[in-house]
C-alpha cells in the first residue's frame, strides 16, 4: 500500500465515504495497530468519534454487589512501574489510572485528562515535539489529597531515575515534563514524535501520588509501604493483597466520574489454569470475568451452551507465526551455533522458503483448532492491488510446493524425502508445550510429508522456551532449530518497536547473549534503511507506508510465515457489560463495567 493510497483512504474518512472503523480495520489488516491508524487520522485533522460503546446505563453509584474476576496468572505486585507483565499491570489498574487509555477502535479516551490534546485545541505543538495535557479538576487520591500536576511531574521523575529500576523507564527517560500550572503539564520530546501518546497513557502511564512515593524515590523505591497498599485515583480503594492469590478492593465513593463505579467490591483471584477459569465463569457462574482464556474454541462453545457466560473475542495485535532459520544452527562457526556468518543448507534459498509457506494449512488451523479465537492471516501483505479482507492472500498448495522444490533441485530419494547434494530435507521444528501448538505442528508435518520434507517435532516447556537463559540451548532466542513457531505480541500500540525487530543490529547472537529480537538473524540493508527512515519520519501517513513496506519485505522473502492472528479471548457472565479493548489493558475502562438486569 503506497502513501498515495493511504492519503486517499484518509480523505474518504474525512468526507464520510469510508467509516472511521472501516479505515482502522484495513490498517490493522496491513499490520498496523488501531492506535497508529487513529493517530494517522488525528494528525490529518479527522476528529475522533465521541461515542462510548456500549452506553453506560446505571444512574447511581454503587449497589452492584461484588465483581469477581479470575486472572489465572495472579498479580504478584501492585505497583505499576515495577510490574512483571500484564497481570501486575491489570492488578495495579484497579487502583491507579493514567491520563488516557486506548479503546478498541484506537481512540484515546481521557481518564485523568480533561480532554485529548490535538492540533486543533492547541494541545499538540511544534509537530508533536511538545504535548500539552490538561488535567481534570476535582480529582482526589484515595486518601483525600487532591490530584494535581505535581503528581504527574513526580511520576515522570520517579520512572526515569535508573536507581528506581522502574520497568517503564524507556517511556520516560527521553522526555521532559514541566508544570505550567496546577492542572496543566507540558511533555516535551527530544525531537518531533509522531506517536506522542506514550507517556502517561495506557498501561505504562499510571500516575502515582507524590505525597506517598516522594520520600521513596530512587534507591529506596522498594521500601515504600505504598508499594503494597496502593493509593490511587481509581474506581476502587485498596482493601487487601495476597501476592499471587488475591487482590481486593472496595468502592471509591469520591470517584471523579459520576454514577461510577457500579460494583461495591472487586475481587481479583489468581492461580490455576485457563480451562478451569473458563469453567468457573462460563459453566458455574461462580466468577463474573476471566482473563486470557487460552482454551480451544470447541471446549469454549460447549461451556457457553449452559447460557451462564459468553466468550468475548477482542481483536488485538498478537500473531502466531513460523520462523525459518536462514543461518545454520547445526554447525559451529567461531564457537557459535546459528552464527550470522553461516548459511542454512535449505532455507537460504528463497524458493525453498516459499515452498514451506505453501505447506502451512492456515485454514485448517483456524477451522479445527482456533475457531473463533484465531483468524488465518497474512498480516504482512504483498502489495495487493486493492483492499479486501486479509485472509485471501496466502495459499495452501502442496502441488505448487512440490513443483517449486523440484525446480530448485531437490529430488525425492528412495525413502520419499527430498535431497540435494547429499543433504536430506529433515528439519527440526520446535515450539513450546501447549496442546494447541502441538496440533498445529501435526498439521504442518502432515503437509510437509506429502511434499517430501520430514519434520522432527520438538516441544520445549514454556517457561524454558520463553526464557532468556544463556545456558539453555532450547530458548526461542537461540533458535537452534530449523523452524520454530510461537506467538509474538505487540507490547506497545505503536508498530515501530514491533517492526524494528528485523533490523540487522538486533540479530540474536552470542555477543548480545541472544537477547536480540531479530531471531531469524535476517540481514537486509534495505530493511535497515527503512527502519531508520521510519524512526524519524514525522508524517504518520508516510510513516505508516514505510512500515507497511517493511512488513511486505519480511513476508515477501518468506523469512516469517504468519499463521493466525490471535485476538484476545475473555470470558464474561452474560449479564456483565464490559468495555474491552485489544490495544490496552482489560481493565482500561473498569469504571464503566456494570451488570445489566440489575440496574438501579
Amino acid at each position, binding site marked *: 500500500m503506497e502513501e498515495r493510497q493511504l492519503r486517499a483512504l484518509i480523505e474518504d474518512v474525512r468526507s464520510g465515504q469510508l467509516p472511521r472503523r472501516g479505515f482502522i480495520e484495513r490498517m490493522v489488516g496491513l499490520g498496523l495497530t488501531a492506535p497508529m491508524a487513529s493517530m494517522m487520522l488525528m494528525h490529518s485533522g479527522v476528529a475522533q468519534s465521541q461515542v462510548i460503546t456500549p452506553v453506560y446505563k446505571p444512574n447511581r453509584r454503587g449497589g452492584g454487589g461484588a465483581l469477581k474476576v479470575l486472572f489465572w496468572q495472579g498479580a504478584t505486585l501492585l*505497583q505499576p512501574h515495577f510490574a512483571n507483565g500484564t497481570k501486575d499491570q491489570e492488578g495495579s489498574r484497579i487502583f491507579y489510572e493514567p491520563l488516557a487509555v486506548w479503546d478498541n477502535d484506537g481512540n484515546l479516551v481521557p481518564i485523568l485528562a480533561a480532554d485529548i490534546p490535538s492540533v486543533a485545541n492547541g494541545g499538540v505543538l511544534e509537530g508533536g515535539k511538545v504535548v500539552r495535557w490538561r488535567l481534570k479538576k476535582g480529582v482526589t487520591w484515595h486518601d483525600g489529597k487532591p490530584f494535581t500536576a505535581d503528581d504527574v511531574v513526580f511520576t515522570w521523575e520517579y520512572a526515569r531515575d535508573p536507581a528506581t*529500576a522502574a520497568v517503564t523507564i524507556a517511556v520516560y527517560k527521553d522526555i521532559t515534563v514541566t508544570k505550567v500550572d496546577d492542572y496543566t503539564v507540558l511533555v516535551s520530546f527530544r525531537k518531533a514524535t509522531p506517536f506522542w501518546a506514550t507517556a502517561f497513557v495506557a498501561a505504562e502511564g499510571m500516575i502515582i501520588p507524590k505525597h506517598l512515593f516522594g520520600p521513596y524515590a530512587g534507591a529506596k523505591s522498594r521500601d515504600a509501604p505504598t508499594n503494597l497498599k496502593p493509593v490511587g485515583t481509581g474506581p476502587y480503594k485498596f482493601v487487601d493483597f495476597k501476592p*499471587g492469590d488475591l487482590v481486593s478492593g472496595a468502592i471509591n465513593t469520591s470517584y471523579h466520574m459520576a454514577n461510577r463505579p457500579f460494583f461495591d467490591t472487586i475481587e481479583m483471584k489468581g492461580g490455576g489454569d485457563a480451562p478451569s477459569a473458563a469453567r468457573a465463569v462460563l459453566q*458455574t457462574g*461462580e466468577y463474573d470475568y476471566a482473563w486470557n482464556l487460552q482454551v480451544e474454541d470447541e471446549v469454549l462453545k460447549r461451556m457457553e451452551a449452559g447460557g451462564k457466560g459468553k466468550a468475548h473475542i477482542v481483536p488485538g495485535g498478537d500473531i502466531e507465526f513460523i520462523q525459518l532459520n536462514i543461518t545454520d544452527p547445526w554447525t559451529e562457526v567461531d564457537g557459535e551455533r546459528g552464527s550470522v556468518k553461516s548459511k542454512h543448507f535449505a532455507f537460504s534459498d528463497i524458493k525453498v522458503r516459499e515452498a514451506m509457506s505453501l505447506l502451512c494449512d492456515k485454514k485448517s488451523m483456524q477451522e479445527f483448532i482456533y475457531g473463533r479465537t484465531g483468524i488465518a492471516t497474512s498480516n504482512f501483505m504483498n502489495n495487493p492491488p486493492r483492499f479486501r479482507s486479509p485472509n485471501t492472500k496466502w495459499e495452501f498448495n502442496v502441488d505448487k510446493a512440490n513443483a517449486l522444490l523440484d525446480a530448485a533441485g531437490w529430488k525425492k530419494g528412495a525413502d520419499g524425502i527430498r535431497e540435494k547434494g547429499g543433504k536430506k530435507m529433515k528439519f527440526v521444528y520446535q515450539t513450546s508445550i501447549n496442546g494447541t501448538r502441538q496440533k498445529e505442528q501435526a498439521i504442518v508435518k502432515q503437509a510437509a510429508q506429502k511434499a517430501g520434507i520430514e519434520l522432527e517435532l520438538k516441544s520445549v516447556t514454556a517457561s524454558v522456551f520463553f526464557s532468556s537463559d544463556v545456558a539453555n540451548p532450547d530458548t526461542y532466542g537461540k533458535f537452534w532449530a530449523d523452524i520454530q513457531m510461537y506467538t509474538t505480541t505487540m507490547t506497545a500500540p505503536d508498530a515501530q518497536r514491533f517492526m524494528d525487530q528485523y533490523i540487522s543490529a538486533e540479530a540474536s547472537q552470542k555477543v548480545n547473549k541472544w537477547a536480540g529480537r531479530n531471531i531469524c538473524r535476517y540481514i537486509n540493508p534495505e530493511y535497515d534503511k527503512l527502519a531508520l527512515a521510519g524512526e524519524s519520519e514525522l508524517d504518520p501517513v508516510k510513516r505508516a507506508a514505510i512500515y507497511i513496506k517493511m512488513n511486505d519485505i519480511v513476508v515477501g522473502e518468506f523469512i516469517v510465515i504468519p499463521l493466525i492472528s490471535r485476538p484476545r479471548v475473555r470470558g464474561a457472565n452474560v449479564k456483565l457489560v464490559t468495555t474491552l479493548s485489544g490495544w490496552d489493558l482489560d481493565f482500561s475502562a473498569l469504571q464503566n463495567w456494570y451488570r445489566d438486569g440489575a440496574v438501579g
Partner: protein
Amino acid sequence: MGHFILRRLLIALPSLLGISVVLFTVLALAPGDPFAEMALNPNVPPEVSANLRKQFGLDDPVWQRYFRWLFAMLQGDWGFSFISRVDVDKLILQRVPVTLAVIGASQLLALAIALPVGIYSAARPYSWFDRIASTLAFVGFSLPTFFTGLLLILLFSIKLDWLPFVFRSDIAGSGWPWWWAHIRQAIMPVLVLGLFQGASWTRYVRSAVLDVIRLDYVTTARSKGLAERAVIMKHVVRNALIPVVTLVALTMPQVFGGAIVTEQIFRVPGIGSLLIDAILRNDTPVIMAVTFVFSCLVIFFNFIADLLYGWLDPRITFR
C-alpha cells in the same frame, strides 16, 4: 534419654547446615533468572534488570550470597522476594492458616478413614468387607489427585452445582455462615487429599494389625473370655499402632509442604502453590525459605517419631 536428645540435637545442626548448602548451591547452579520476563520485554532497557540484579546482589559470587543468606536467616530475616518485592516471612505467614486448615483437615480425614477400616479389615481378613476395602484402597492411591479432583469438580460443581470450586480465602462475615462457607469450599480439596492419603494408610494399618492379631497373647486374651471388642481395642490396637503412629509423625511435615497439584486445581492459596510459583519464576529467597523450613520440620518430626516409638514400645531403649 537426656543423652539421646542432646546427641540428636547436636547432629541436627550440621545436617541443617549441610542441607542449606546443598539447596543453595543447586538453586545457584540451576538455569533461570528471576528477571527473565523483564529481559524479554523490548520496552524495558537492559539497565533496569542490571540495576535490579545489583540491588539484590545477584551478581556476587555464590559463597558470598550464601553467607549473606545464612547470617540474615540467623537474625530472623527470611529474605525479600524478587518477584513480589515483599518480605518472605510475610508471604509464608499469609498462606500458613489456609495450608494448615485444608491439608491438616485432610490428614485428619485420612486417619479417620484408615483406622476403623484398617482395623476392621484386619479383624476379619479376606471377608467381603476386607476385599471391598482393599480394592477401594488400591484404586484410591492409584488414581492421581488431579484426576479425582477434576472428577469431583465435574460432579459436585458443574453437574449438581452444590459446591464452589474456586477457593476464596477472604470470605467476609463471621459466625456460622462464615464457617459454613469455608466448609463448603474446603470439602472437595480435603476429600481429594484425604482419600488419597487414607487409601495408603488403610493398607498400612491393616498389615500392622494383622501382624499383631495372630500372636499368642491375643489368643490368650480371647480364651480368657474377654469380649472381642475389648481384645481388639485394648490389646491389639495399642500394640499394632506403634508403627502407625510413627508413620503419621513422619508425614506431618507434608502438612506444611502443602499439596501442589490439588492446590493448583482448586486454587487453594497454600504453601505448595507458593513454592511452585517461586520455582517457576526463579524467586530464590522464597524457595530457600520454604524448603529450609520444610527440611527443619522433617528433621524435627523424625526426632519426634523416634521419641514416640521409644516411649510407646517398652522393648526399645535409647542409647
